[in-house]
């Protein structure tokens, strides 16, 4: 591969195919690759299988737009800005979406196993809950457990054979085609530096067959290599890079900008129905590119979200609901 890993947003979206298994960087309403999520919706990607340690607004947008057939995760909502995932909820009701529930730690450990090249992880979390109810193996019920991209079993129950620690659950490593990260800095050769909590980004990058890093800025590789101990993901685990300022908006990015709470509240309030979602998408997604989206947001709003460089968050953005 050439050392130049730069691609455009449009090319990045084209790497994600109809039916791809896809995952993202970030955590709930933080550091989600929204610029690409919008582009996937514009390109009308279909039949995606999202495999997420946890969901968030990105899940809601893709599901609302009809891009997703399967969502395998543990949680979706907008934190303080929307109680639950109204689009996921609606499409579960109409059976347009298959949801496979694991617990949060289970999803994390499934990614950690995949990142180690292991076939499965073993854990004692969530024993005794309906997460382990065999009747609720939704991918199994749909006949999709082919043992290739989707594990043959949702769980295997066993006992600790080494120390007699009791009941154990084996959970399959995830298989992921594409991971899309949204980070503060990437070097020209792909080295990623995440500031703040790195959530499950290192495991996502190592697990996926293809990793795309969308960064607030592309910086000289040599600059990042001066302090290699501060870097998060090694160059060779990143296949493509692109620079996209405010690429995580409306989610937040440590040290750069806060979550746009009023945007998420507006989205949550307006997209309980399909008509509402389509109307929102018409206003904010279709007919736009990333720059015209930012123009529509406007500089005053973006400056308000901009993080204080000493505190790493904004002192201007009003958080309160009252």
């Amino acid at each position, binding site marked *: 591969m050439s050392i130049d890993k730069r691609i455009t947003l449009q090319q990045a979206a084209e790497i994600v195919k109809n039916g791809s298994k896809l995952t993202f960087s970030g955590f709930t309403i933080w550091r989600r690759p929204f610029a690409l999520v919008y582009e996937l919706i514009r390109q009308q990607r279909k039949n995606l299988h999202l495999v997420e340690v946890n969901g968030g607004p990105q899940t809601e947008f893709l599901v609302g737009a009809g891009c997703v057939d399967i969502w395998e995760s543990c949680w979706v909502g907008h934190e303080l800005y929307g109680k639950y995932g109204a689009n996921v909820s609606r499409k579960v009701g109409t059976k347009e979406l298959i949801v496979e529930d694991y617990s949060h730690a289970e999803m994390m450990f499934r990614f950690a196993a995949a990142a180690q090249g292991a076939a499965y992880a073993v854990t004692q*979390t969530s024993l005794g809950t309906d997460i382990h109810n065999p009747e609720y193996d939704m991918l199994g019920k749909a006949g999709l457990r082919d043992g290739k991209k989707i594990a043959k079993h949702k769980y295997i129950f066993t006992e600790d054979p080494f120390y007699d620690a009791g009941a154990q659950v084996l959970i399959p490593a995830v298989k992921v085609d594409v991971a899309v990260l949204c980070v503060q800095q990437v070097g020209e050769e792909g080295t990623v530096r995440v500031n703040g*909590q790195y959530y499950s980004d290192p495991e996502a990058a190592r697990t996926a067959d293809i990793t795309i890093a969308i960064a607030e800025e592309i910086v000289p590789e040599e600059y990042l290599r001066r302090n290699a101990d501060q870097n998060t993901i090694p160059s060779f685990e990143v296949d493509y890079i692109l620079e996209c300022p405010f690429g995580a908006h409306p989610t937040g990015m440590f040290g750069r900008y806060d979550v746009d709470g009023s945007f998420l509240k507006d989205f949550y309030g307006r997209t309980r129905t399909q008509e509402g979602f389509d109307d929102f998408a018409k206003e904010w997604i279709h007919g736009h590119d990333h720059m015209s989206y930012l123009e529509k947001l406007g500089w005053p709003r973006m400056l308000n979200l901009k993080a204080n460089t000493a505190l790493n968050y904004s002192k201007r953005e009003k958080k309160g609901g009252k």
Partner: protein
Amino acid sequence: MSDYAKPEEFGLADLLCCAASREVSDNEIVFAGTGLPMVAIMLAQKTHAPNLKLIFEAGTLDGRPPELPTSVGDARCEMGASRSSGLNDAFSIAQRGLVDLGYLGGAEVDQYGNVNTTCIGDYLNPELRLTGSGGNPDINSFARRTVFIMVHEKRRFVENVSYITSPGWRVKKWPGGEWVHRRELYGAAFRGGPSAVISTAGVFRFDEETGLMYLDTCHPGTTPESIKGLCQFDLDISRVKGETELPTREELRIIHEVLDPDEIFIPKVKPV
């Protein structure tokens, strides 16, 4: 001598927050989720438990946020933290058995402390799909004690929850689904379980042998009988100790002037 506030000086959210805060002891390692639990734990940090170690699920270890984060992924979590990392660390620490106490929420709870945050109605044909588990079962599986903070309505305190998202004292052993005591199922990972449910009506605890919930204290304006009437199961009210300890004026000052002046999670009571 504590300077307790008068009933007109605080709201239910204040009472819940202070009751939750009193569940933690100094030097404990605590896992706190978004919302009221976060305020409760930061209140404890600023009052009787200055050396508690706070873990946020997204990867902040021993955090001392100077102002209230809006979620556990927030940049505000990390100010003053011992280490900022990721979820694999946070959940490994929990599974390793280092967590004393977790604060969680739920939409429904049964008499064994099984909690549902996944769906209302039949899972295969739900009336309403909710957020899903998040870290609720994970923290509840591994912490020594778990405190649930909940809105109290009869439809939420039920005989059987629609879906057991988070394990109580008696749980289902899969693949068969037989009810067993949590201790039997968790083996070496058994460290405890739900220690309190703090609802908008009262504080509830569990008999660890039978696994059954009982009423511990009543909030002002309720009686054991009125609370029993707000449960679909037969609530044990024989062990009730009296009224829930009220917030002090100092606690109210910290909540509203220091922790949540913008009323993100806890509204101020307006003087009449």
